[in-house]
Protein backbone atom coordinates (compact mmCIF):
# COMPACT_ATOMS: atom_id res chain seq x y z
CA UNK A 1 0.00 0.00 0.00
CA UNK A 2 1.22 3.48 -0.74
CA UNK A 3 2.13 5.13 2.58
CA UNK A 4 1.48 8.54 1.12
CA UNK A 5 -2.24 7.95 0.96
CA UNK A 6 -2.53 6.25 4.35
CA UNK A 7 -4.80 8.01 6.86
CA UNK A 8 -2.84 10.57 8.80
CA UNK A 9 -4.34 9.64 12.10
CA UNK A 10 -2.39 6.42 12.00
CA UNK A 11 0.83 8.37 11.69
CA UNK A 12 0.24 11.45 13.78
CA UNK A 13 -2.29 11.73 16.59
CA UNK A 14 -4.81 14.58 16.62
CA UNK A 15 -3.73 17.73 18.38
CA UNK A 16 -5.34 18.67 21.62
CA UNK A 17 -7.31 21.65 20.27
CA UNK A 18 -9.23 19.25 17.99
CA UNK A 19 -8.04 20.67 14.68
CA UNK A 20 -7.53 18.26 11.79
CA UNK A 21 -4.21 18.51 9.99
CA UNK A 22 -3.44 16.77 6.74
CA UNK A 23 -0.01 16.37 5.14
CA UNK A 24 0.02 18.07 1.77
CA UNK A 25 3.58 17.46 0.59
CA UNK A 26 2.61 14.27 -1.42
CA UNK A 27 -0.54 15.60 -3.06
CA UNK A 28 1.04 17.29 -6.08
CA UNK A 29 3.00 14.15 -6.87
CA UNK A 30 -0.14 12.01 -6.64
CA UNK A 31 -2.05 14.44 -8.84
CA UNK A 32 0.56 14.12 -11.56
CA UNK A 33 1.20 10.39 -11.45
CA UNK A 34 -2.37 9.13 -11.30
CA UNK A 35 -3.55 10.73 -14.54
CA UNK A 36 -0.42 9.56 -16.26
CA UNK A 37 -1.01 5.98 -15.16
CA UNK A 38 -4.65 6.16 -16.11
CA UNK A 39 -3.82 7.68 -19.49
CA UNK A 40 -1.28 4.93 -20.10
CA UNK A 41 -3.81 2.26 -19.24
CA UNK A 42 -6.37 3.84 -21.55
CA UNK A 43 -3.86 4.02 -24.39
CA UNK A 44 -2.92 0.37 -23.94
CA UNK A 45 -6.58 -0.65 -23.75
CA UNK A 46 -7.37 1.24 -26.92
CA UNK A 47 -4.32 0.09 -28.81
CA UNK A 48 -4.85 -3.66 -28.32
CA UNK A 49 -8.19 -3.88 -30.13
CA UNK A 50 -6.88 -1.62 -32.85
CA UNK A 51 -3.99 -3.99 -33.44
CA UNK A 52 -6.18 -7.06 -33.59
CA UNK A 53 -8.93 -5.48 -35.65
CA UNK A 54 -6.52 -4.17 -38.23
CA UNK A 55 -6.50 -7.51 -40.01
CA UNK A 56 -9.55 -8.35 -42.08
CA UNK A 57 -10.58 -11.41 -44.05
CA UNK A 58 -10.90 -10.52 -47.70
CA UNK A 59 -12.01 -13.94 -49.01
CA UNK A 60 -12.81 -17.24 -47.37
CA UNK A 61 -13.33 -20.36 -49.46
CA UNK A 62 -14.06 -23.79 -48.05
CA UNK A 63 -13.97 -27.06 -49.98
CA UNK A 64 -15.42 -30.16 -48.39
CA UNK A 65 -13.65 -33.36 -49.39
CA UNK A 66 -15.32 -36.73 -49.53
CA UNK A 67 -13.15 -38.00 -46.64
CA UNK A 68 -14.70 -35.46 -44.26
CA UNK A 69 -11.86 -32.98 -44.25
CA UNK A 70 -12.32 -29.37 -45.25
CA UNK A 71 -9.83 -27.32 -47.19
CA UNK A 72 -9.70 -23.69 -46.13
CA UNK A 73 -8.31 -20.93 -48.30
CA UNK A 74 -8.41 -17.40 -47.02
CA UNK A 75 -6.94 -14.13 -48.15
CA UNK A 76 -6.34 -11.79 -45.24
CA UNK A 77 -5.25 -8.17 -45.07
CA UNK A 78 -2.70 -7.73 -42.28
CA UNK A 79 -0.78 -4.88 -40.69
CA UNK A 80 2.34 -4.41 -42.77
CA UNK A 81 4.04 -2.68 -39.85
CA UNK A 82 3.77 -5.75 -37.66
CA UNK A 83 6.30 -8.53 -37.99
CA UNK A 84 3.87 -11.28 -36.93
CA UNK A 85 0.22 -11.99 -37.39
CA UNK A 86 -1.77 -14.23 -35.10
CA UNK A 87 -4.49 -16.11 -36.94
CA UNK A 88 -7.31 -17.88 -35.17
CA UNK A 89 -7.92 -21.20 -36.90
CA UNK A 90 -11.31 -22.87 -37.13
CA UNK A 91 -10.15 -25.86 -35.12
CA UNK A 92 -7.12 -27.61 -33.77
CA UNK A 93 -6.90 -30.57 -36.19
CA UNK A 94 -4.89 -28.83 -38.85
CA UNK A 95 -2.92 -30.34 -41.73
CA UNK A 96 -0.92 -28.96 -44.61
CA UNK A 97 -0.84 -25.39 -43.40
CA UNK A 98 0.72 -23.02 -45.89
CA UNK A 99 0.91 -19.23 -45.78
CA UNK A 100 2.28 -17.05 -48.52
CA UNK A 101 2.37 -13.44 -49.51
CA UNK A 102 -0.11 -12.47 -52.19
CA UNK A 103 2.09 -10.15 -54.25
CA UNK A 104 5.37 -12.05 -54.31
CA UNK A 105 3.97 -15.52 -53.66
CA UNK A 106 6.80 -16.20 -51.24
CA UNK A 107 6.13 -18.66 -48.47
CA UNK A 108 5.92 -17.36 -44.93
CA UNK A 109 7.07 -19.20 -41.84
CA UNK A 110 4.33 -20.31 -39.47
CA UNK A 111 4.11 -21.61 -35.92
CA UNK A 112 0.88 -23.42 -35.07
CA UNK A 113 -0.08 -23.64 -31.42
CA UNK A 114 -3.39 -25.36 -30.78
CA UNK A 115 -5.92 -23.38 -32.81
CA UNK A 116 -3.63 -20.39 -33.40
CA UNK A 117 -1.16 -19.80 -36.16
CA UNK A 118 1.59 -17.22 -35.80
CA UNK A 119 2.56 -16.12 -39.28
CA UNK A 120 5.75 -14.16 -39.83
CA UNK A 121 4.30 -11.62 -42.21
CA UNK A 122 7.55 -9.61 -42.52
CA UNK A 123 5.91 -6.45 -43.78
CA UNK A 124 3.30 -8.10 -45.96
CA UNK A 125 0.01 -6.30 -46.33
CA UNK A 126 -1.96 -9.26 -47.69
CA UNK A 127 -1.43 -12.97 -47.15
CA UNK A 128 -3.13 -16.19 -48.17
CA UNK A 129 -3.45 -19.14 -45.84
CA UNK A 130 -4.24 -22.67 -46.99
CA UNK A 131 -4.90 -25.60 -44.73
CA UNK A 132 -6.97 -28.71 -44.17
CA UNK A 133 -9.12 -28.97 -41.08
CA UNK A 134 -10.90 -31.99 -39.66
CA UNK A 135 -13.06 -30.26 -37.07
CA UNK A 136 -15.88 -29.00 -39.25
CA UNK A 137 -17.41 -32.31 -40.40
CA UNK A 138 -19.04 -34.98 -38.31
CA UNK A 139 -20.79 -38.15 -39.40
CA UNK A 140 -23.67 -40.12 -38.03
CA UNK A 141 -24.75 -43.14 -40.01
CA UNK A 142 -24.71 -42.10 -43.65
CA UNK A 143 -25.39 -38.48 -42.88
CA UNK A 144 -22.45 -36.10 -42.83
CA UNK A 145 -22.85 -32.76 -41.07
CA UNK A 146 -20.90 -29.60 -41.74
CA UNK A 147 -20.98 -27.18 -38.80
CA UNK A 148 -19.28 -23.85 -38.97
CA UNK A 149 -19.59 -20.45 -37.32
CA UNK A 150 -17.93 -18.17 -39.80
CA UNK A 151 -16.63 -14.71 -38.94
CA UNK A 152 -17.19 -13.56 -42.52
CA UNK A 153 -19.10 -14.44 -45.66
CA UNK A 154 -17.70 -17.48 -47.40
CA UNK A 155 -18.11 -19.94 -50.23
CA UNK A 156 -18.57 -23.65 -49.67
CA UNK A 157 -17.94 -26.26 -52.34
CA UNK A 158 -19.70 -29.52 -51.57
CA UNK A 159 -18.08 -32.87 -52.42
CA UNK A 160 -18.81 -34.63 -55.70
CA UNK A 161 -21.99 -36.69 -55.76
CA UNK A 162 -23.13 -35.28 -52.46
CA UNK A 163 -26.81 -34.71 -51.84
CA UNK A 164 -27.73 -31.95 -49.42
CA UNK A 165 -30.57 -33.10 -47.19
CA UNK A 166 -30.67 -30.31 -44.67
CA UNK A 167 -29.58 -26.70 -44.23
CA UNK A 168 -29.97 -24.54 -41.15
CA UNK A 169 -29.40 -21.38 -43.19
CA UNK A 170 -30.22 -20.58 -46.76
CA UNK A 171 -27.34 -19.62 -49.00
CA UNK A 172 -26.97 -16.23 -50.57
CA UNK A 173 -26.24 -17.88 -53.90
CA UNK A 174 -25.94 -21.39 -55.32
CA UNK A 175 -24.15 -22.78 -58.37
CA UNK A 176 -23.72 -26.25 -59.76
CA UNK A 177 -20.24 -26.97 -61.09
CA UNK A 178 -20.20 -30.34 -62.84
CA UNK A 179 -21.32 -32.67 -60.07
CA UNK A 180 -20.55 -30.29 -57.25
CA UNK A 181 -22.69 -27.65 -55.61
CA UNK A 182 -21.13 -24.38 -54.55
CA UNK A 183 -22.91 -22.29 -51.94
CA UNK A 184 -22.32 -18.67 -51.01
CA UNK A 185 -23.09 -18.35 -47.32
CA UNK A 186 -23.28 -15.43 -44.97
CA UNK A 187 -21.30 -15.08 -41.76
CA UNK A 188 -22.65 -16.76 -38.67
CA UNK A 189 -23.43 -20.30 -37.63
CA UNK A 190 -24.46 -22.76 -40.33
CA UNK A 191 -25.16 -26.47 -40.40
CA UNK A 192 -25.48 -28.50 -43.58
CA UNK A 193 -26.40 -32.18 -43.67
CA UNK A 194 -25.49 -34.23 -46.73
CA UNK A 195 -25.20 -37.78 -47.94
CA UNK A 196 -23.46 -39.25 -50.94
CA UNK A 197 -25.59 -40.19 -53.90
CA UNK A 198 -26.00 -39.14 -57.50
CA UNK A 199 -26.59 -35.55 -58.49
CA UNK A 200 -28.84 -35.03 -61.45
CA UNK A 201 -28.20 -32.45 -64.11
CA UNK A 202 -29.76 -29.05 -63.48
CA UNK A 203 -33.32 -29.30 -64.66
CA UNK A 204 -33.79 -25.98 -66.37
CA UNK A 205 -36.76 -27.51 -68.13
CA UNK A 206 -38.10 -30.60 -66.39
CA UNK A 207 -39.94 -31.76 -69.49
CA UNK A 208 -36.72 -31.78 -71.50
CA UNK A 209 -35.13 -33.79 -68.75
CA UNK A 210 -37.92 -36.32 -69.02
CA UNK A 211 -37.62 -36.42 -72.78
CA UNK A 212 -33.92 -37.18 -72.62
CA UNK A 213 -34.29 -40.33 -70.63
CA UNK A 214 -37.73 -41.72 -71.21
CA UNK A 215 -38.30 -40.98 -74.83
CA UNK A 216 -34.78 -41.46 -76.08
CA UNK A 217 -35.05 -45.23 -76.01
CA UNK A 218 -38.50 -45.21 -77.55
CA UNK A 219 -37.45 -42.92 -80.41
CA UNK A 220 -33.92 -44.05 -81.07
CA UNK A 221 -34.72 -47.75 -80.66
CA UNK A 222 -37.12 -48.02 -83.62
CA UNK A 223 -34.90 -45.78 -85.75
CA UNK A 224 -31.94 -48.02 -85.13
CA UNK A 225 -34.07 -51.08 -85.79
CA UNK A 226 -35.27 -49.69 -89.11
CA UNK A 227 -31.72 -48.75 -90.02
CA UNK A 228 -30.49 -52.24 -89.25
CA UNK A 229 -33.26 -53.83 -91.27
CA UNK A 230 -32.52 -51.50 -94.18
CA UNK A 231 -28.83 -52.27 -93.96
CA UNK A 232 -29.54 -56.00 -93.92
CA UNK A 233 -31.81 -55.71 -96.97
CA UNK A 234 -29.24 -53.67 -98.87
CA UNK A 235 -26.56 -56.18 -98.01
CA UNK A 236 -28.76 -59.02 -99.15
CA UNK A 237 -29.39 -57.26 -102.44
CA UNK A 238 -25.68 -56.73 -102.85
CA UNK A 239 -25.02 -60.36 -102.06
CA UNK A 240 -27.56 -61.32 -104.74
CA UNK A 241 -25.76 -59.33 -107.44
CA UNK A 242 -23.16 -62.08 -108.14
CA UNK A 243 -26.05 -64.28 -109.27
CA UNK A 244 -26.56 -61.80 -112.10
CA UNK A 245 -23.02 -62.59 -113.22
CA UNK A 246 -23.96 -66.23 -113.24
CA UNK A 247 -26.75 -65.39 -115.62
CA UNK A 248 -24.15 -63.82 -117.87
CA UNK A 249 -22.54 -67.22 -118.35
CA UNK A 250 -24.18 -67.71 -121.73
CA UNK A 251 -22.46 -64.51 -122.81
CA UNK A 252 -19.15 -66.00 -121.72
CA UNK A 253 -20.05 -69.09 -123.61
CA UNK A 254 -20.69 -66.95 -126.64
CA UNK A 255 -17.34 -65.32 -126.00
CA UNK A 256 -15.75 -68.73 -125.96
CA UNK A 257 -17.31 -69.17 -129.29
CA UNK A 258 -15.24 -66.28 -130.60
CA UNK A 259 -12.96 -67.12 -133.48
CA UNK A 260 -9.92 -69.10 -132.60
CA UNK A 261 -6.54 -67.54 -133.42
CA UNK A 262 -5.80 -69.93 -136.28
CA UNK A 263 -9.00 -68.97 -138.06
CA UNK A 264 -8.17 -65.31 -137.60
CA UNK A 265 -4.67 -65.84 -138.90
CA UNK A 266 -6.00 -67.69 -141.93
CA UNK A 267 -8.42 -64.91 -142.68
CA UNK A 268 -5.79 -62.24 -142.11
CA UNK A 269 -2.72 -63.82 -143.57
CA UNK A 270 -0.83 -60.55 -143.67
CA UNK A 271 -1.07 -60.11 -139.89
CA UNK A 272 2.14 -59.11 -138.16
CA UNK A 273 3.83 -61.63 -135.89
CA UNK A 274 3.61 -59.36 -132.85
CA UNK A 275 -0.07 -58.81 -133.57
CA UNK A 276 -0.57 -62.55 -133.75
CA UNK A 277 0.93 -62.88 -130.28
CA UNK A 278 -1.54 -60.30 -129.00
CA UNK A 279 -4.45 -62.17 -130.57
CA UNK A 280 -3.26 -65.44 -129.06
CA UNK A 281 -3.02 -63.83 -125.61
CA UNK A 282 -6.48 -62.36 -125.87
CA UNK A 283 -7.88 -65.71 -127.00
CA UNK A 284 -6.20 -67.51 -124.12
CA UNK A 285 -7.82 -65.10 -121.67
CA UNK A 286 -11.40 -65.67 -122.64
CA UNK A 287 -11.48 -63.47 -125.71
CA UNK A 288 -11.07 -60.12 -123.98
CA UNK A 289 -8.41 -58.40 -121.93
CA UNK A 290 -7.65 -54.93 -120.75
CA UNK A 291 -5.16 -52.96 -122.74
CA UNK A 292 -3.13 -52.48 -119.58
CA UNK A 293 -2.81 -56.28 -119.29
CA UNK A 294 -1.47 -56.40 -122.79
CA UNK A 295 1.13 -53.78 -121.94
CA UNK A 296 2.21 -55.76 -118.90
CA UNK A 297 2.35 -58.98 -120.85
CA UNK A 298 4.34 -57.70 -123.78
CA UNK A 299 6.23 -54.99 -121.91
CA UNK A 300 5.28 -52.37 -124.41
CA UNK A 301 4.86 -48.66 -123.88
CA UNK A 302 1.36 -47.26 -123.84
CA UNK A 303 1.55 -45.65 -127.30
CA UNK A 304 3.00 -48.76 -128.96
CA UNK A 305 0.37 -51.04 -127.54
CA UNK A 306 -2.37 -48.53 -128.34
CA UNK A 307 -1.24 -48.47 -132.00
CA UNK A 308 -1.25 -52.29 -132.07
CA UNK A 309 -4.80 -52.67 -130.74
CA UNK A 310 -6.02 -49.90 -133.02
CA UNK A 311 -4.41 -51.75 -135.92
CA UNK A 312 -6.26 -54.93 -134.92
CA UNK A 313 -9.44 -52.91 -134.61
CA UNK A 314 -9.01 -51.55 -138.14
CA UNK A 315 -8.65 -55.14 -139.35
CA UNK A 316 -11.97 -55.95 -137.61
CA UNK A 317 -10.19 -58.51 -135.44
CA UNK A 318 -10.94 -56.76 -132.12
CA UNK A 319 -13.27 -54.19 -130.80
CA UNK A 320 -12.33 -51.66 -128.11
CA UNK A 321 -14.67 -50.32 -125.50
CA UNK A 322 -14.49 -48.69 -122.08
CA UNK A 323 -14.94 -50.72 -118.94
CA UNK A 324 -14.15 -49.39 -115.48
CA UNK A 325 -12.46 -46.41 -117.09
CA UNK A 326 -10.07 -48.72 -118.93
CA UNK A 327 -9.81 -49.90 -122.51
CA UNK A 328 -11.14 -53.40 -122.95
CA UNK A 329 -9.91 -55.23 -126.05
CA UNK A 330 -12.23 -57.99 -127.21
CA UNK A 331 -11.88 -60.43 -130.10
CA UNK A 332 -14.71 -60.14 -132.56
CA UNK A 333 -16.61 -63.30 -133.46
CA UNK A 334 -18.05 -62.09 -136.76
CA UNK A 335 -14.82 -61.72 -138.66
CA UNK A 336 -15.55 -64.57 -141.07
CA UNK A 337 -19.07 -63.45 -141.72
CA UNK A 338 -18.00 -59.90 -142.50
CA UNK A 339 -15.47 -61.14 -144.90
Amino acid at each position, binding site marked *: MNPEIMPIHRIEPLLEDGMLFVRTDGIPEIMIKTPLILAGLIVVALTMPVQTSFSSTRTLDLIIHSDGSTHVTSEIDVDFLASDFELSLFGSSIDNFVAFEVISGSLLSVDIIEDKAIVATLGSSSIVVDYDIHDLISKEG*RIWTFSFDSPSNYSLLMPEN*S*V*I*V*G*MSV*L*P*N*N*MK*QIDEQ*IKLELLSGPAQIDY*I*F*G*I*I*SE*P*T*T*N*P*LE*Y*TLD*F*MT*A*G*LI*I*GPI*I*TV*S*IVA*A*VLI*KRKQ*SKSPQIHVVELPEKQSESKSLDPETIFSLRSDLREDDKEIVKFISENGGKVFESDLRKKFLQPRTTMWRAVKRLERLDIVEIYKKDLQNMVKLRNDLEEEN
Partner: protein
Amino acid sequence: MKVIASFGLLILVASMILGNPAFAESLDNIRILVLNYDDNSATVKITWNYDDKATNYKIGCVSCNPNTEKFTTGNNITFNNVTPFPSSSYAMLYVITYDSENKIISAKQLIVDLSQ
Protein backbone atom coordinates in the same frame (compact mmCIF):
# COMPACT_ATOMS: atom_id res chain seq x y z
CA MET B 1 -22.25 -58.65 -92.49
CA LYS B 2 -22.33 -60.64 -89.26
CA VAL B 3 -20.46 -57.86 -87.48
CA ILE B 4 -22.99 -55.26 -88.60
CA ALA B 5 -25.89 -57.49 -87.58
CA SER B 6 -24.33 -58.17 -84.17
CA PHE B 7 -23.64 -54.49 -83.64
CA GLY B 8 -27.19 -53.60 -84.56
CA LEU B 9 -28.57 -56.21 -82.22
CA LEU B 10 -26.42 -54.86 -79.42
CA ILE B 11 -27.68 -51.33 -79.96
CA LEU B 12 -31.25 -52.59 -80.12
CA VAL B 13 -30.95 -54.45 -76.84
CA ALA B 14 -29.21 -51.50 -75.20
CA SER B 15 -31.91 -49.10 -76.34
CA MET B 16 -34.60 -51.44 -75.09
CA ILE B 17 -32.93 -51.67 -71.70
CA LEU B 18 -32.38 -47.94 -71.42
CA GLY B 19 -35.83 -47.10 -72.66
CA ASN B 20 -37.63 -49.55 -70.46
CA PRO B 21 -38.09 -48.35 -66.89
CA ALA B 22 -38.35 -51.94 -65.72
CA PHE B 23 -34.63 -52.35 -66.39
CA ALA B 24 -33.63 -48.94 -64.92
CA GLU B 25 -31.75 -48.55 -61.67
CA SER B 26 -33.30 -46.78 -58.75
CA LEU B 27 -33.94 -43.08 -59.46
CA ASP B 28 -32.60 -43.38 -63.00
CA ASN B 29 -35.60 -41.61 -64.47
CA ILE B 30 -37.06 -38.71 -62.55
CA ARG B 31 -39.78 -36.49 -63.93
CA ILE B 32 -40.39 -33.12 -62.35
CA LEU B 33 -43.44 -31.06 -63.10
CA VAL B 34 -43.97 -27.58 -61.65
CA LEU B 35 -47.72 -27.32 -61.34
CA ASN B 36 -47.91 -23.69 -60.30
CA TYR B 37 -45.58 -20.97 -59.14
CA ASP B 38 -46.54 -17.57 -57.77
CA ASP B 39 -42.99 -16.18 -57.28
CA ASN B 40 -43.08 -17.29 -53.65
CA SER B 41 -43.84 -20.97 -53.64
CA ALA B 42 -44.80 -23.73 -56.02
CA THR B 43 -46.41 -27.13 -56.14
CA VAL B 44 -44.06 -29.67 -57.63
CA LYS B 45 -44.95 -33.17 -58.75
CA ILE B 46 -42.06 -35.60 -58.82
CA THR B 47 -42.30 -39.02 -60.48
CA TRP B 48 -39.56 -41.62 -60.62
CA ASN B 49 -39.06 -45.04 -62.13
CA TYR B 50 -40.20 -48.19 -60.40
CA ASP B 51 -37.53 -50.17 -58.60
CA ASP B 52 -38.39 -53.54 -57.10
CA LYS B 53 -35.61 -53.21 -54.51
CA ALA B 54 -36.95 -49.92 -53.14
CA THR B 55 -39.71 -49.99 -50.55
CA ASN B 56 -39.74 -46.45 -49.24
CA TYR B 57 -38.87 -43.02 -50.54
CA LYS B 58 -37.99 -39.82 -48.71
CA ILE B 59 -38.43 -36.53 -50.52
CA GLY B 60 -37.27 -33.26 -49.05
CA CYS B 61 -36.99 -29.59 -49.82
CA VAL B 62 -33.72 -28.00 -48.72
CA SER B 63 -34.42 -24.55 -50.08
CA CYS B 64 -37.60 -24.40 -48.01
CA ASN B 65 -37.36 -22.58 -44.71
CA PRO B 66 -37.69 -24.56 -42.54
CA ASN B 67 -36.65 -27.66 -44.47
CA THR B 68 -39.50 -30.04 -45.19
CA GLU B 69 -39.64 -33.74 -45.99
CA LYS B 70 -42.19 -36.37 -46.93
CA PHE B 71 -42.26 -40.14 -47.19
CA THR B 72 -44.02 -42.34 -49.68
CA THR B 73 -44.02 -45.92 -50.85
CA GLY B 74 -45.22 -45.06 -54.34
CA ASN B 75 -43.26 -43.74 -57.26
CA ASN B 76 -44.56 -40.17 -57.22
CA ILE B 77 -45.31 -37.36 -54.83
CA THR B 78 -46.81 -33.92 -54.96
CA PHE B 79 -44.92 -31.38 -52.91
CA ASN B 80 -46.71 -28.20 -51.83
CA ASN B 81 -45.16 -24.93 -50.71
CA VAL B 82 -41.82 -25.51 -52.39
CA THR B 83 -39.90 -22.26 -52.05
CA PRO B 84 -36.81 -21.27 -53.99
CA PHE B 85 -33.58 -19.88 -52.60
CA PRO B 86 -33.72 -16.16 -51.77
CA SER B 87 -33.46 -13.89 -54.81
CA SER B 88 -33.69 -16.88 -57.10
CA SER B 89 -36.21 -19.14 -58.78
CA TYR B 90 -34.22 -22.31 -58.10
CA ALA B 91 -35.39 -24.76 -55.50
CA MET B 92 -33.27 -27.58 -54.13
CA LEU B 93 -34.93 -30.90 -53.41
CA TYR B 94 -33.78 -34.45 -52.93
CA VAL B 95 -35.09 -37.98 -53.22
CA ILE B 96 -33.71 -40.85 -51.18
CA THR B 97 -34.55 -44.50 -51.83
CA TYR B 98 -34.65 -46.96 -48.96
CA ASP B 99 -34.77 -50.72 -49.09
CA SER B 100 -36.81 -53.04 -46.88
CA GLU B 101 -34.16 -52.78 -44.14
CA ASN B 102 -34.40 -48.99 -44.26
CA LYS B 103 -30.95 -48.68 -45.77
CA ILE B 104 -30.29 -46.02 -48.36
CA ILE B 105 -30.10 -47.43 -51.88
CA SER B 106 -29.54 -44.19 -53.72
CA ALA B 107 -30.09 -40.48 -53.47
CA LYS B 108 -30.42 -37.68 -55.94
CA GLN B 109 -30.30 -33.93 -55.69
CA LEU B 110 -32.89 -32.12 -57.72
CA ILE B 111 -32.38 -28.50 -58.67
CA VAL B 112 -35.58 -27.18 -60.14
CA ASP B 113 -36.16 -23.87 -61.85
CA LEU B 114 -39.64 -23.13 -60.61
CA SER B 115 -40.16 -20.35 -63.15
CA GLN B 116 -40.08 -22.73 -66.10
